[in-house]
Structures are given as C-alpha cells and as structure tokens.
C-alpha cells in the first residue's frame, strides 16, 4: 500500500469538508474492492474517509410501501434480516449470494452500487425493483443511476445515504457465479407486478448492468419461460475475458432469466 491519511468522521458536514475540492480523497464504505485495490498499489488516494462512524447510515426499516436500507448496511445483515426476508425475500436471497463470508460481513449496499462493478449483484436488484438512490444532494431513480462500466450518476463529492425499494409484486434473482470470485458471470433479476415486468442483467454487459427490454416485452405477453424461446442476447456486445466469451455469457444470462421466471411462477 501507498501511504494515506485515514479519517473517521462522525458527521456528514465533516465528510463534506474533507472531500471538498480534494480529488485525491476516497470514501471508504466496506472496502471490499477499494482495500484490495490499495494493497495491489493500483490506486493511491491521499485520504481515506471512513463512513463507518456516521450515525444513521446503517439499518433497515419499512416505511409505508417501501423498504429502506441504509447505504452502510452490510450484505450479511440484509441477508439475515427478518424484515427483508419477509418484505423482499428476493433481495435477502441476493445478499446471501454476494462474494464470500468476509465480503458479506464487511461489504455494504452503498459501496457496491457506488462502485458499479459490471459483475456486482446489487445493481441488478436496484434496476429490476426500480429503487431510488438517495444521496446527500438528491434522489436518483436506479434507471438513471447506473451509467456505464464503473460509472454512476454520482458527482465527485456526493454521498449515498440510503436506497428505497418499492414493495409489491414478485421478484427472483438467479446467478451463475464465477467459482473463484463469486462475481456473477451472469445474473438475472426478474420482477413482475402491476402489469409490468422488469428484467435486469448483471455480470454480462460491457457497460455494466442493463435492462433486457426484449425479454420484458415477451414476458409481459406471457409470463412463462417458454415466452423467451429463441430469445437470446447478442454475444458480441457482452463481456469477453479469460473466464468466458461474450457468447457464453449471453447464453448464461438467458438461462438465468428463464430460471428466475420459473422461480417466480413456483412462488404461486
């Protein structure tokens, strides 16, 4: 690691003061990507601003027709939460599938979506469930939040406070993890409710998470895996690397989507 100055502020104004005008400062949430990157010396921020001591950033609550999850809530806490398991079981199941126990016990919702890794799990849930990302400056619909590979709508000094998930409908997440990293080779979050269907694909697209609109249209007509017969993504536009070709990932994403649809049908 290169040397840096560690800060552990206890309120947001101090975070803003530390971030203000300093391009070389980085926010630290769970650190499950950032710390690994620092250890490899692939980044050298001047300052790390740990959000762990800011009150009110972690925790889950039900507010009306929504489930609100604080940005610093750990994956393991989401997975184990009776509230999430009851209100949004597909999200609890997704959190259970992220990484390994170390990642789940340190990694956070806010950290995951701010990084927008193209193989991360949470972005698929946010997009399929039409979540709203609340920052210290504004509210951003998930559809506008995830921009491109590792790119979000966040401004340099903007801090995610919480994510609001609307409740209702039925959802399921199916993923094919890379056996070593547990990152999604392909993951599909399917949701249906109020006459709508949303399909969000992660791990597969070169620009990160995306909505598969052709599959959504087919499932709106007939919510059954057979509605997707002959429908596949274009392998040329998908991530291709040592773990799998674009065509392989395109096929996997199609299979995961069909499985998620079957799982929702099994819910009754």
């Amino acid at each position: 690691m290169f040397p840096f100055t560690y800060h552990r502020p206890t309120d947001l104004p101090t975070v803003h003061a530390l971030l203000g005008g300093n391009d070389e400062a980085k926010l630290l949430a769970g650190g499950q990507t950032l710390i690994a990157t620092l250890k490899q010396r692939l980044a050298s921020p001047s300052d790390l601003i740990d959000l762990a001591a800011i009150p009110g950033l972690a925790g889950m609550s039900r507010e009306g027709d929504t489930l609100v999850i604080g940005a610093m809530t750990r994956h393991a806490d989401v997975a184990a939460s009776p509230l999430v398991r009851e209100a949004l079981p597909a999200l609890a199941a997704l959190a259970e599938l992220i990484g390994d126990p170390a990642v789940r016990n340190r990694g956070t919702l806010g950290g995951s979506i701010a990084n927008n890794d193209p193989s991360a799990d949470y972005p698929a849930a946010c997009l399929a469930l039409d979540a709203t990302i609340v920052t210290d400056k504004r509210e951003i619909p998930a559809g506008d939040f995830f921009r491109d590979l590792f790119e979000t709508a966040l401004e340099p000094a903007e801090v995610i406070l919480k994510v609001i998930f609307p409740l209702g409908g039925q959802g399921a997440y199916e993923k094919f993890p890379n056996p070593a990293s547990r990152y999604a080779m392909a993951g599909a979050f399917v949701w249906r409710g109020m006459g709508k269907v949303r399909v969000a694909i992660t791990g597969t697209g070169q620009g990160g998470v995306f909505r598969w609109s052709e599959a959504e249209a087919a499932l709106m007509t007939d919510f059954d895996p057979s509605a997707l017969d002959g429908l596949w993504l274009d392998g040329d536009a998908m991530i291709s690397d040592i773990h799998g070709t674009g065509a392989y990932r395109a096929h996997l994403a199609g299979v995961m989507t069909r499985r998620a649809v079957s799982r929702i049908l099994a819910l009754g």
Partner: protein
Amino acid sequence: MDLTGSQRIEAPREEVWRALNDAEILRQCIPGCQELVQTSPTEFTAKVVLKIGPVKAAFAGAVTLSDLEPPTAYRIYGEGQGGVAGFAKGGAKVWLIEEEGVTILNYEAQAKVGGKIAQLGARLIEGTSKKLAGEFFGAFALLVAPAPVDVTTE
C-alpha cells in the same frame, strides 16, 4: 483485442486531418491525458491517468504517429509505463472518407495491458478499451465539429 468503429464528423476532411495532427486537440481527447508534449512532427511524450473503477494509475509514455498518408490516414500508437501497476499500450489505424462535406472517421484499434493491472482487470479490459476508444473519438468529433450526428461502435 481489436475494436472497430466509425464516427461521422460535420467538417471537411482537411480540417479533420489537421485536428488529428494537433497536439492540443489530441491532449483534450485522450481520456485522462494530463500532458502531451510534441517532440517532433510525429512524436509526443504523454502523461495519462487511467481511472477504471477503484483503479487509478498514472502512466508516462510516448505517442507516435506513423504510416502518414495526408489527408486520409495514419496510425497512432501509444505506450506507457505505470510503475507497479504495469504497462499499457494501444494504437489505432485511422482513415478518413469524405462524403459531401462531411467526414467519416473510421478506426481499428488495439489495446494491451500487462503486469498487475492486467491480472486484476482481466475481465474488464475489453469493455474498458471500448469505452476509452469511444470517449476519445466522441470527444474528437465534438471538438472538431460541435454536434456529432451519428456514433456507431461494433
């Protein structure tokens, strides 16, 4: 890894060609370029900060123009060392086709990274290269002719 694309630029070919050889315009278009100094008509030294997600590495290196066929085509090649992060090199064959006052810029680019950055980022190199190439030619079209009409990447 190869990527190809084309960009329609609302400007005559001569003008596009001049811009392709202008250090100041190139500096503004190369993603993360902090400094580009011309050392000869076809050689430049460059400082580029590559930022992909959590990774942020500064590369120092050289940019060379070759196979010049004014005003239609050349090859642009860059190579840089990023210290412990590894190295990055990439180039593009660029050729211009004039169509009724409008120029179609075509490119065939290659990118390679090695060292630690490649180990960590193996799954991301193609997507990143595509994104960087798109940013470069997109910014270029905007600078040369303020409103690009069509962008295609394949």
